[in-house]
């Protein structure tokens, strides 16, 4: 993200060193090749290993949270025992 902010400054002023030039080239065609590969992967996993990690983290967190929510729903539905 920060690289993009720095890139933005350079892009609007047009002073670009060779090192960061790769950052600002049009790399859409590389992404198009990656995501049009005939490998049968659904789009949410087609970017590679990072996609699977992020998906599993999200699904795991959501499922744990749902179990937590259902547990507390059941607890809150029960009458409190009088002393």
């Amino acid at each position, binding site marked *: 993200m920060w690289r*993009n902010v720095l*890139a*933005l400054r350079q*892009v*609007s002023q*047009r002073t670009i060193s060779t090192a960061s030039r790769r950052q*600002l080239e*049009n*790399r*859409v065609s590389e*992404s*198009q090749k*990656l*995501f*049009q590969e005939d490998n049968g992967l*659904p*789009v*949410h996993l*087609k*970017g590679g290993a990072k996609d699977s990690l*992020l*998906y599993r*983290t*999200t*699904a795991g*967190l*959501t*499922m*744990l*949270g*749902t179990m*937590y*929510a259902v547990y*507390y*729903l059941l607890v*809150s539905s029960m009458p409190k025992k009088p002393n």
Partner: protein
Amino acid sequence: MTHQAHSYHMVDPSPWPILGAAAALLTTSGLTMWFHYNSPNLLIIGLTSTILVMFQWWRDIVRESTFQGHHTPTVQKGLRYGMALFITSEAFFFLGFFWAFFHSSLAPTPELGGQWPPVGITPLNPMEVPLLNTAILLASGVTVTWAHHSITEANRKQAIQALTLTVLLGFYFTALQAMEYYEAPFTIADGVYGSTFFVATGFHGLHVIIGSTFLLVCLLRLIKYHFTSNHHFGFEAAAWYWHFVDVVWLFLYISIYWWGS
């Protein structure tokens, strides 16, 4: 290899709708746990999972359109209808809060001292920071239109400058509004004045943050060459949303800040 005989997009199976629904469940029940049992854990899990789902779902839409080419003119038409309907629903959302404001302010009760603003409330001066905020949002409407023209004219440098300026103006508004909230001589707990003021302007502020984020994502995509001079609907959707946020502010300024003081 089979090819479709229509111009619609039959999406790949995706986990985001169900996980998004679950995240909404966690966020709402998390709010309940926080309000009634003083426990923020579920709310934090809910907000985190909501953000994760949003990031991945919209990432996938960028992949399907820019990288896979599925957004035909027919698909784009559907997206236009969708965004327009969504913004319309948001307009109705704000209409409710304006209704509440006018309900209480047009006929102030004896408990308020029979006047609006109520007895004991010192409203903010509409000619100070609120006027500056109005100028900021109006200017940002100009810059986002400049950005759009630059995109259609394939002027990359100016498009980036104009969109950057728009985003900065949005953040400036948010910063000023946050400072106003901190310095205000009344709170949300100060009767119906406080409630109507902070709920209406608060939801508006949330929409400014959402709109600024949407524009920032568009800026990053613009830098990465995702938009072409005649296909850039993501940007157009962000610009529509931003104009909507601007218009809501104008109504807020005129009715709550100006008439309401």
